[in-house]
């Protein structure tokens, strides 16, 4: 099989959300001594971009996006140990993500984290009920590009504001793009607290993060 044909099959497996097939093709590419980074860039990543484009065009819905991300993860699980740096994240951009202190919801945050990983971001997931200073400390430690905070209640979304205030106080606000999300969060809130944006679902969060890189 020609390399180009294999790359096409890789993209197809992601578009179809076929986890088993994407893992199989990833293993096959290693047996054929194809550079794993090449398989990601020219095969799997093309697939996940197309999944995003199909969602934008209204041809795909949330379940298909998630299936695409799952298939991407299956391939990345096979390929990542064989990439020289040993790290995921083909974009070379790091995201620190978590649900703010006092809030134990994590499903939405997990979906955003997985979608970001599938789209080439390296994600440091702090989990739920994260002490606010931990967002700042971790972002500094790992030299993150993004800080993403989730909050599901009006009583906990104030934590997003406090983290941004901490960044401002330390004079490091401009080092990071800060994205906020969660059921009570909207554009107005994001603007008022000085965040760089918000998205109403995981796919939009990826689009927003990618747009902020341009």
């Amino acid at each position, binding site marked *: 099989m020609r390399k180009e044909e294999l790359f096409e099959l890789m993209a197809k497996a992601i578009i179809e*959300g076929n986890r088993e097939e994407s893992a199989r093709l990833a293993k096959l590419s290693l047996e054929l001594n194809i550079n794993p980074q090449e398989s990601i860039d020219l095969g799997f990543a093309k697939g996940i971009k197309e999944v995003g484009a199909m969602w934008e065009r209204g041809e795909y*819905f*949330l*379940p*298909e996006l*998630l*299936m695409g*991300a*799952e298939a991407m*993860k*299956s391939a990345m699980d096979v390929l990542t140990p064989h990439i020289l740096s040993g790290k995921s994240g083909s974009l070379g951009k790091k995201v620190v993500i978590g649900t703010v202190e*006092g*809030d*134990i*919801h*994590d*499903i939405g945050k*997990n*979906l955003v984290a*997985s979608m970001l990983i599938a789209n080439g971001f390296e994600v440091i997931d702090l989990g739920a009920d994260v002490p606010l200073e931990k967002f700042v400390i971790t972002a500094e430690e790992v030299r993150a590009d993004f800080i993403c905070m989730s909050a*599901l*209640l*009006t*009583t*906990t979304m104030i934590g997003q504001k406090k983290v941004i205030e901490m960044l401002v106080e330390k004079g490091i606000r401009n080092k990071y793009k800060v994205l906020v999300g969660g059921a009570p969060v909207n554009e107005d809130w994001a603007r008022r607290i000085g965040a760089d944006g918000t998205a109403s679902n995981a796919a939009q969060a990826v689009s927003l993060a990618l747009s902020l890189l341009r």
Partner: protein
Amino acid sequence: MEESFKKGEPPPLPKVEEKVILKLLKYKKKDYSKIKPLIEEGYKIAYSLSKPRYVYKIFSSDSIPHHPIFERSSFVALALCTIGEELENEASKLTKDGELLKGLIVDVLGSEIVEMVADYTNSLICKEVMEMGFYAGKRFSPGYGIFELGWQKNFFTLLPAESIGIKLLPSMMMFPRKSISFAVNIFKDEKKESSSLVCRFCDRANCEKRR
């Protein structure tokens, strides 16, 4: 009217309809064969891990902290419902492990199942209220409209929440997450119940309920 706690487990709950799940997943295609197997798996997980429980009590209106929303009622029923924490733990684990869609389906089912527990509990309250010759209004929960989330703490001082495994976090969030608190106004006179009772106090001019 007797004022005592009523606590229990509802009878086996009906199956959440597939069309409801698809709507919550925002899936608009007629052919959903690709995700149907995951929905089937989701049913098995969600129903086996749900542990539905409820507790409620009917209070005279003047025996609970004042709120404008209770001003016309003679009595107020306060209720807490949950399906326990096993389901939400599994949904979190699935999404963390990369099984995003299955995890989301289980989570969505959990939200629907706990609503059914609330519906069942509400029906018990309505039955009790009817037997006493009173009228039950609609149920409402803290955090919606003018019924502030802060009022949530009163549910936990007035009801034995821990006896059904619910805790209140400092953020006023309930743990397990798949839990519902709600109040029902109880009137002597049917005319006092008005669908616009909440609207009278709420300032959300564009709310769907006003139209």
